[in-house]
């Protein structure tokens, strides 16, 4: 019990039963359907799932940068023990200044096109609340250091450049440098390598992991590739249609994944040892306007049972630290 409390205290982010919907022309889309997620101090987690499953919505909610159309219908998001949905302006400012930083999917669009790299990084440092944040000399030193640590060559010259003068890989490394120029409790990386050349994806991921480890931040990595998740994360969440369907340590998940959806995802990874083209999962994501009332994977699930239609299954702990939201793993039922 004591260890449990200690573990709770170590949580940087603790999302509890989060429901979010978006206003559209046709009505509200119920995207997040009771998401539970936590990240401990210095822990690196990955959220894996297909496009449109709510990964980005989840982390935008954590970083408090949801679009205006989004509505939180229920749940709590604890950041270092405080509910960020009920924070006042001052606390939110603190959260943004030194709590969380976000690296976006598209390195081309995530830097302002008409300001130099140096100006943009200095501005981030200026509002980070570190000592001497308003001193241009401190800003410059920090910027140079951050760029150098991200193994970018010739930081002084780089600072004078505009984003469009740099390659995608360099820009993404600058985003990483920016996100870690000052201490952060949590870094969120939203598919940071999706828009990059395959040849530099690996390099950027390595830099991201190294930097997060050096700075002792926690990391949430969003990806649709289980391979990328395994390379970076200690623990993996599998997300499907607004629900976390399975979570386990990275190695554990690769040894044995339990949820029918995770199994489908796993079979999509091409294997060098042959076995033909991956089979994929038949069907597609359900409509968020009128999602299935029970388990949202039920329409595509090869193991669907009548009760799956009635209510979303809760998380069952199938093995220590390995949880799965599927009636197949209810205590007393064999898989």
């Amino acid at each position, binding site marked *: 019990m004591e260890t449990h409390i200690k573990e709770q205290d170590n949580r940087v982010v603790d999302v509890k039963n989060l429901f979010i919907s978006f206003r559209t022309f046709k009505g509200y889309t119920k995207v997040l359907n009771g998401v539970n997620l936590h990240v401990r101090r210095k822990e690196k987690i990955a959220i894996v799932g297909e496009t449109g499953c709510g990964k980005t919505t989840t982390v*935008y909610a954590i*970083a*408090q*940068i949801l679009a*205006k159309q989004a509505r939180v219908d229920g749940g709590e998001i604890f950041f270092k023990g405080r509910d960020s949905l009920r924070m006042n302006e001052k606390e939110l*400012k603190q*959260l*943004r*200044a030194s709590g*969380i*930083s*976000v690296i*976006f*999917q*598209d390195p081309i*669009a*995530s*830097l*302002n*096109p*008409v*300001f130099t790299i140096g100006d943009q990084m200095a*501005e*981030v440092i200026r*509002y*980070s609340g570190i000592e001497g944040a308003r001193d241009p000399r401190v800003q410059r030193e920090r910027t140079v250091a951050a760029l150098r640590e991200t193994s970018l060559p010739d930081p002084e010259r780089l600072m004078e450049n*505009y984003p*469009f*003068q740099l390659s995608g890989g360099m820009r993404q490394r600058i*985003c990483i440098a*920016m996100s870690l120029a000052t201490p952060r409790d949590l870094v969120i990386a939203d598919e940071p390598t999706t828009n990059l050349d395959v040849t530099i994806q690996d390099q950027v991921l390595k830099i991201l992991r190294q930097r997060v480890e050096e700075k002792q931040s926690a990391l949430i990595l969003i990806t649709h590739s289980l391979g990328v998740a395994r390379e970076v994360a200690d623990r993996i969440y599998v997300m499907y249609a607004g629900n976390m369907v399975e979570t386990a340590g990275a190695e554990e998940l690769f040894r044995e994944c339990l949820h029918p959806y995770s199994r489908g995802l796993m079979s999509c990874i091409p294997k060098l040892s042959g076995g033909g083209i991956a089979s994929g999962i038949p069907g597609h994501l359900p409509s968020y306007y009128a999602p299935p009332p029970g388990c949202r994977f039920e329409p595509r699930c090869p193991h669907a049972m009548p009760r799956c239609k009635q209510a979303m299954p809760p998380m069952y702990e199938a093995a220590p630290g390995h949880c799965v939201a599927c009636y197949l793993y209810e205590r007393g039922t064999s898989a």
Partner: protein
Amino acid sequence: MILKILKRVVSYLLVLLGLSVFVFILVRVMPGDTARLALGPRAPEETVQALRREMHLDKSIPVQYYYWLKGILQGDLGTSVISKRPITEDIAFYLPATVELALLSAIFMATFGILLGVTATKYSEKWPDAIIRVLSYLGIVAPAFLWAVLAMLLFAYLIPILPVSGRISAGIAPPVTRTGLYIVDYLLQGNFAGAWDAFRHLVMPAIVLSFGGISQSARICRASMVSNMEKPYAAAERAYGIPENKILYKYLLKPSLNSFISVTALDIAMLFGGAYLVESIFNYPGLSRYGLTAMLNKDVFAVSAVMLVDGVIVIGFNLVTDIIISFLDPRIRYSSST
């Protein structure tokens, strides 16, 4: 960069040459006999013939064009048959008045265009945005002369606080001409009462003239800012805790200014030649009103001169716009192609 501007200047000079041909022909093919109109219906035929010869109106159009262009290159725009003065002198008198009016309008346009545009962005889809939208549609659909009449009714008749016509009140001596801009000239003389009087005369027509431009620039400004707001960099700036107003006025406004500046600069350029009705209603001695009178009297040289001056102004504004935009946007500044 300098090479690029030089290239632009050369191409604009060619445009000007083309414009001069166009203007010249357009004015000559208008119906009406210049010499006869100038001298009146009772003038003897011989006198009219003599004037025609003097103005080279009896020659073929290409020959007339040659004489005209030669005159322009020597700084001679011809003589107005109405005012009987060299047109260069007329323009030197009327143009500063228009410049003064257009500059004040331009200041209103840029300031309120940006303020309203940013406010509409900040509260997009909320009630301030809705009010600004309705106001700007009004400004776009209703012509300036309607606002002129309404403004006169309101500020000169119902609440008589502003004068309705002219550049200065009767009984006040005009300033010694240095720039031709009355406010500036009075200030240079240290005559603050005069400057204030000139400003009071200017403010109503300037607001009325800027109304359409403000509406358009506010719409354009809002449109490009709202679309830039969706970009990840805006989300990133917010996520890093940069204050909302700084994001709006610095990080979103600067990349959104390109279309705003292009549209506003054209609107401003249009004020120099397109303020006929407002200048007439306010009895303001500007270039547009001079051009209108010249046109009604088929004063060929004066009309051509006014159109040419307007052309130079529009082209000048285009050039300035190009330069401003390339200073704001490094992608244009550093691109090698034109």
